């Protein structure tokens, strides 16, 4: 799934005056810089009254795609059926959470749980913080299905619409649903985390929703999802690798399986955008530049656990430190997509289109340079407690 992976947006910009009051938790300057840029943390308002989840403060723009374009997507319904739905997997052939968890109906259940818990003991707290953040992101799936259904021309009008787009959205949601289920059950059985705090965080997050600033436009929407799916693919791939390093092969398999789903979804979404570049290169490149300027916001950036006003920032910092998802990854994804969609070779662009093309093609190197320079600075060590692991402190 796209969003789940904590989109630990890293690159930060020393942005001039935003609403966010990032409180006194001292993350190193470098980390703060990196986080803020892409994370949009800055654009979130921390309401002054205590114990409130953050909310979006940017003006929420709607329906920026002109109505004639809506017909374009209707006319692509056949194409979508033949080219996009093929990336869905038949339910009968799909893995289910039970395939990767102790079987409660078997004699060996308790033994299997014991083994699971033994392996989990060897995994450090900071890894669990990142895994929990990922799981919470996955569990906020209602928000993402909603987001897809805000898009003009492709939304599921009834909840059971038979357009290819609607079929895709529901099936995609169903596939993603397994991710949160699997991670939830694993974390529950592991005994390493405070499930109640996690459950609370999920409830807050679904209640908060998110505005990815896709403005009801499928151009913006599918560019966003392309980016996100790749991001989750990378992130889950990293948690799989780390789980292996910590000796938990089953967890590695779990994360790897989820990553494989994400890859398949990435293929589908990037194909849609590739088609849009083919039939409408100018507006598509403008859309790409627009999303990159607004920065790809993280699906779980409004996360809140009832205690920590900087929860997302802290979580992202840990994800960056562990190498699960970093500023470099953000740049890499952008570069990948620019290549995948052949943005450099686009022709027939307007003046604005050329500017957008230049911006997009030049952006990844700029981000990398920024990240390199930021890395080269001395970092102050700081920690933060995470309620997800019973208030224990984690190095940021």
């Amino acid at each position, binding site marked *: 799934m796209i969003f789940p992976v904590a989109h630990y947006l890293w690159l930060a*910009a*020393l942005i*001039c005056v935003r609403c966010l009051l990032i409180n006194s938790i001292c993350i190193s300057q470098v980390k703060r810089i990196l986080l803020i840029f892409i994370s949009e943390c800055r654009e979130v308002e921390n309401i002054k009254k205590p114990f409130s989840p953050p909310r979006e403060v940017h003006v929420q723009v709607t329906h920026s795609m002109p109505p004639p374009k809506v017909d374009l997507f209707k006319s692509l319904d056949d194409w979508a059926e033949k080219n996009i739905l093929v990336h869905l997997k038949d339910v009968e052939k799909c893995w289910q959470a039970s395939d990767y968890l102790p079987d409660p109906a078997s004699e060996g259940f308790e033994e299997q749980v014991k083994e699971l818990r033994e392996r989990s003991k060897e995994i450090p707290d900071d890894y669990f913080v990142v895994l929990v953040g990922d799981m919470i992101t996955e569990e906020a799936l209602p928000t993402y299905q909603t987001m897809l259904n805000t898009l003009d021309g492709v939304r599921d009008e009834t909840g059971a619409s038979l357009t290819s787009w609607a079929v895709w959205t529901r099936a995609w949601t169903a596939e993603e649903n397994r991710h949160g289920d699997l991670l939830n059950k694993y974390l529950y059985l592991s005994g390493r985390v405070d499930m109640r705090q996690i459950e609370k965080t999920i409830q807050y997050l679904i209640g908060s929703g998110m505005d990815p600033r896709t403005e009801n436009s499928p151009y913006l929407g599918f560019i966003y999802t392309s980016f996100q799916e790749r991001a989750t693919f990378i992130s889950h791939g990293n948690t799989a690798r780390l789980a292996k390093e910590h000796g938990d092969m089953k967890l590695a398999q779990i994360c790897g399986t989820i990553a494989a789903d994400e890859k398949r979804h990435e293929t589908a979404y990037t194909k849609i955008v590739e088609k849009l570049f083919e039939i409408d290169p100018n507006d598509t490149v403008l859309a790409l530049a627009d999303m990159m300027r607004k920065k790809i916001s993280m699906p779980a950036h409004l996360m809140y656990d009832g205690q920590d006003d900087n929860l997302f920032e802290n979580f992202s910092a840990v994800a960056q430190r562990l190498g699960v998802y970093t500023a470099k990854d953000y740049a890499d994804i952008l570069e990948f997509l620019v290549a995948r969609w052949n943005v450099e070779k686009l022709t027939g662009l307007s003046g604005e289109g050329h500017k957008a093309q230049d911006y997009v093609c030049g952006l990844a190197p*700029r981000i990398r340079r920024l990240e390199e320079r930021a890395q080269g600075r001395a970092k102050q060590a700081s920690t933060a407690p995470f309620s997800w692991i019973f208030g224990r402190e984690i190095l940021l």
Partner: protein
Amino acid sequence: MAAVSATCVRFGTSLNQSTKLNQIAGTSTSLKPVAVGWARRGFPSLRTSHFRISCAAKPETVQKVCDIVRKQLALPAETELTPASKFSELGADSLDTVEIVMELEEAFSISVEEESSQNISSVQEAADLIDKLVQKKSEA
């Protein structure tokens, strides 16, 4: 609507500057004893915040900042660039602003702290902060 907001922005900027001027004016009397101190001790330790605020950025600093900003934002020669110019008004996005601050750090061999960087939104603010940091550095 646009006209109104532009006016507001300008007003805000001049208010800022006049505040700074007030602070300068307000502390002018306190400069005398310090001046005496200079004669005795050579370069004074610039520890009082009053003194720091009263030092408006040197023209060379402002010029250097302008050059860097102009280059970063690829501003055409006709574009007017004054100390009061706000980066956002010049078309800088957040990435541009970070890059500008990093260029300034390299050009002046200083390090900008997170808290200070939040206040850099115009050429003047950048120049003021730079001079402050350069002075601090030379004291150390």
